[in-house]
């Protein structure tokens, strides 16, 4: 009888011991997750952004861009494979051009009501540029056309040249280019008054009607025709960094197409 009780006590003690041993545990199964490699979230290392690869034989390349900053445009020149960041003006220092500024709009679903407009200097552009990006908004020195293809390989196998495609130019907008989102939860957002390419900007829809934003990529390949006559094919592969931070664009391209 006594031995029996001792055995039972020993069994219960074993449970306790097991428990204590594992109580220091701070998680398991780390191996099923990925670790962000050199994630690119560090904005101090700007040299890694831009045209990160290009094959002159196939004309294929990759752009990796830090688009986390709401207050600047990034200008890209495909001809020179260069990148230049230029800040969005927030004040008026000289004569007003009649349209440049930041429009604070109340957003209700898909309706916009202008609250106030702050006049600013005109946006300064880069000397040479083909494409300018701000967050997920785009400006094109020329026009853009959205294809039905979901990858550059699909595009290449089609053999189409898009010479007769209808390229859409930039148009003026005061409710697309967000520069001040500090009051987003009150649905009051500051937008830059500027020309913007709505076709290319559709590569990533950012729905803010029910915060937080819902991101929906189109997944399509876009053809750009620049003022110099050259064309480029672009596909937005990803809009997040390796660690999942939104605003880091990976764009595969063919230039000249």
């Amino acid at each position, binding site marked *: 009888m006594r031995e029996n009780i001792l055995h039972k006590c020993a069994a219960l003690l074993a*449970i306790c011991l097991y428990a204590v041993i594992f*109580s220091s545990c*701070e*998680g398991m*199964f780390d191996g099923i997750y990925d670790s*962000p490699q050199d994630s690119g979230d560090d904005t101090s290392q700007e040299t890694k952004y831009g045209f990160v690869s290009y094959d002159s034989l196939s004309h294929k390349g990759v752009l990796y861009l830090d688009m986390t900053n709401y207050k600047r445009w990034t200008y890209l020149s495909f001809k020179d494979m260069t990148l230049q960041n230029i800040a969005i003006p927030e004040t008026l220092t000289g004569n007003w051009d009649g349209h440049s500024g930041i429009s604070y709009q109340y957003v209700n679903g898909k309706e916009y009501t202008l609250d106030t407009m702050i006049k600013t200097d005109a946006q300064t552009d880069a000397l040479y540029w083909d494409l300018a990006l701000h967050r997920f908004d785009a400006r094109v020195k020329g026009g853009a056309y959205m294809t039905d293809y979901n990858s550059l390989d699909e595009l290449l196998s089609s053999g189409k040249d898009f010479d007769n495609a209808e390229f859409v130019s930039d148009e003026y907008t005061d409710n697309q280019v967000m520069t001040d989102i500090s009051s987003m939860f009150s649905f009051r957002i500051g937008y830059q008054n500027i020309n913007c390419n709505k076709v290319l900007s559709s590569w990533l829809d950012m729905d803010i009607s029910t915060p937080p934003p819902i991101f929906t*990529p189109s997944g399509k390949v876009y053809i750009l025709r620049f003022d110099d006559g050259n064309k480029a094919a672009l596909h937005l592969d990803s809009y997040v960094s390796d*660690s999942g931070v939104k605003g880091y664009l990976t764009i595969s391209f063919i230039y000249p197409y």
Partner: protein
Amino acid sequence: MKKIILYTLLLLFVGGASAQKIVKGTVKDEKGTALAGATICLTDDITVGTTADTDGAFVLKIKSDYKGKIQASYVGYTTQYKDITDKKQQNIAFTLKEDVKYLDQVVVTGTRTPKLLSEAPIQTRLITSEDIEKTDAANITDLLQQEMPGSEFSYAMNQQVNMNMAGFFGQSVLFLIDGERLSGETMDNVDFQRLDMNNVERIEIVKGAASALYGSSAAGGVINIITKDKMTKPVSVGLSARYGSHNNQMYSANIGLNKGMFHNMLSVNYTGIDTYTVDYNKDNDFNQVFGGNTWNFKDKLILTPSDDLKFTAKAGYFFRERLYNTDIPDRYRDFNGGLRGNWTINDRSDMELSYNFDQYDKSDYIKAKDLDIRDYSNVQNSVRALYNYSFSKTDQDRLLTFGADYMHDYLDSYQFSDGYKSQNTADVFAQYDWNLNKYWEIVGALRYDWFSDGNNSNLTEKVTIRWHKDAFTVRLGYGGGFRAPSLKEKYMNYDMANIFYIRGNKDLKNEKSHNFNISGEYTHGSFNYTASAYYNLVQNRITTSALKNDGDGTGNYVQYMNIDDINVYGGEITAQCRLPLGLNAKVCYSYTKEEIKQMGTLNPYAPARPHSLVFRMDYDRQVSKDYGFNILFSGRYLSSVDSEKFNTQDNTSVNVTYPAYTLWKLSFTQRIMKKIRISAALDNLFNYIPSPYYFNSPTTSGRTFYIDVSVNL
């Protein structure tokens, strides 16, 4: 010719007379009272039957070759069966017992000791496996909304689910699985999708503060999900499949093995639903309901080497993917396991020791890069001990309970800016349960909790008195509740999409509550009526402040803070019965009132609706041994509620009224050969469509359907 006809008729008459036998007798209750109107019929053919007269007497003619059973049934009493003998005339005296099946169920949550529901000193709401089967609920949110008025699940930001149970949000209602806490939270609520209804034996709900037994986060109540562990067959297999609107699919499989001292139950559950859009309105809080899928694996092994010793080991894995952004779905995983030993030391004492591990992770799956990046992990290791000592060998008229818990809580979150946090918590508690006589019972408990982070501690107490006589029970109680600030609430420092920061507050005080409650219960046969009322004084509720800016260049922020006293009071009335001919009905009404003295808080949640009601009526009939069916009509009504919407821009509030709504469901279930169950249901029967869709509107897109097939072997 006339003679031939006469002989033929005579033969028919004689033949007919010889093919019948007479069964007569009486139907009375245990006190000898005649049960007039009781139904007497053949068990295999209920179309052959009669009813008892005012003296309880009956006469039934049946085929002489019938060799089965005859049954007598009466509302509020357990059906009794008797064998038919070969005698041409048989006298049978039925003595029916009162049906107290519902109240005969054992509950454990109110006192952490097994008690009959009718004798539980703490009022306990019980949702049985039969209720779960009738509601066809897929998970705990479905179930509670159908069964518990005053419980509402609405959306918080980012379509995360937020619960409100009688004025208490998710962080103040403790969810347990077999008595164990769940790790992880999102917007202060546990992952309700973890709590599928597959393999659940019953759910016990104790409303009101229960911190004297359960510690922190039990200020609003405890919901304890008890899983099945009783198996009778050596091998049992259960399979089920469901298909419904929005490509809603659910599949589950259970395999039970039972041999000697070993019992094992393995269950697997999958659910999936597509994203669907709702009618657009510019004032909608959401325009889509995001789909996703879940997997839930659970295994429970029970070892009983002797009558007085029982070991339980369990392990589980949960996976959920949510398609908020389709190319970067959110992923949620949980790994859990545990060991428990129960030892009946002697006639007077027993003890329980357990260890539990629960790890809840969140990650983002970046499809384009095939990267699964974890950004949240909460790991809880717990050890528990519980000891019961009865001062009497034969009757538990005085029962003393001691308990102690230790937990290591580890949290690594994307919402921290300076790495992971962890702390140890420990507690001891004691409870004395004293049956003064057959009418009166008094229970008192005291608990001391300690948290290593900030060397925080709390003392909680409760006392309950139960009076019981015949069919009446009255309970009167006071319970203390508290919630220690979580690691998240203390150390959070999160950049909310460049809009503002959410900051923790190391100086947060414990949220405390005082709960006073009274309830009355009357039971007669299958009729059960309960009424209860409660008052809660909540002090130092932890919530987030309004938008602040210190002007030091750090920008806008909200911060966790304690707010002034809140009064929450209300009551509940429930009536349920089993009517003759297989009719069952239940109606439950709940009233809740929150009085918040001080606002100035960024509270994203809708308050409790003052009035709510759930109703359920079903007709159940076993047509033959191999076929039965059930028709169920159920619904719920939630009244409108006035609230305020906070504007982060100018720190002002605007009044808003969230409209009332009612949802109804009709289902038809067929049972074939006791092994196959086929259900078809129309949900939101009257096609209610909210406009606009507020966070606390039902997520319905209109009338929906589902078909469910299950097989048990």
